[in-house]
């Protein structure tokens, strides 16, 4: 299957920091072997089907004042996001993780709203990097 994916010269929008540092995916893509499924498509699809659900878990944790659950969900989102190059969202996840770890959730709702906005931008950028028929149904965020 041929997959057209934007490369490192993908521009940011309006001078805003890019939601995705594409150089991270480029680094992983050097592992691509002939005849194997596209690494970038595999990873993008896995991200789009995994991380929005984790953010929902984080939201539930904030609503129920469950610091341990917030820490766990944020930790998982952080590692996936940093690994795919979603650095801005990954940093916000790290902040959420710290709030969960210390069980000080007063600032968590505002931080969660920022995380939702950043994940929205991240998912949009990643969906755009896939061909239209490949992104169908992989991100409901």
């Amino acid at each position, binding site marked *: 299957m041929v997959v057209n994916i934007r490369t490192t010269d993908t521009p940011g929008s309006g001078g805003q920091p890019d939601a995705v540092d594409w150089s991270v995916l480029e*680094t*992983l893509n050097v*592992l691509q*072997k002939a005849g*194997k499924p596209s*690494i970038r498509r*595999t*990873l993008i699809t*896995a*991200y789009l*089907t*995994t*991380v929005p659900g984790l953010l929902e878990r984080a939201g539930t944790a904030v609503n129920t004042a469950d610091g341990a659950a917030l820490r*766990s969900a944020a*930790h*998982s989102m*952080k*590692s*996936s996001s*940093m*690994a*795919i190059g979603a650095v801005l969202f990954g940093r916000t996840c790290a902040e959420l993780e710290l709030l969960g770890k210390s069980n000080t959730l007063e600032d968590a709702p505002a931080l969660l709203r920022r995380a939702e906005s950043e994940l929205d931008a991240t998912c949009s950028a990643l969906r755009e990097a896939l061909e239209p028929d490949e992104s169908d149904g992989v991100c409901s965020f």
Partner: protein
Amino acid sequence: MKGNQLNNSIVAKSDVRLLVAEDNPFNVELIKIMLDSLEYPEAVFVTTGRQACEACNVQQYDLILMDCNMPEMDGYEATRHIRTLESSVSSMLCHRPSIIIAMTGDSMPDNQEECRKAGIDDFLPKPFTIQHFKNVLQRWLPESD
């Protein structure tokens, strides 16, 4: 770290038995890609610490990549269970203890100490690059057949 534990043994790269305990589907795909690129055999994947323990009850693994942050049972507790299991059967069956590598996003000293106390041999801090992944595996596994 002790290092090269299996390099001095008769285990060939193609015979290495790998178990990966990781609940995050994105990380699972990433690890599959990296293992394939380094030409290690296909690993067995589980998603909880409890499943990792059950897998070790059925078969012995040469190396276990253990996520520390998993539902049901975390990587520390799973490692303690596996070490207990090994101590009860290894003397009878001459099993070599599995090499257990913690995959953790928290590489602070207190976390590393908790890993060591649980019986974890080495760390793979998240997020990891292919080079980090390769370096850690090569410390413990044979590089060729």
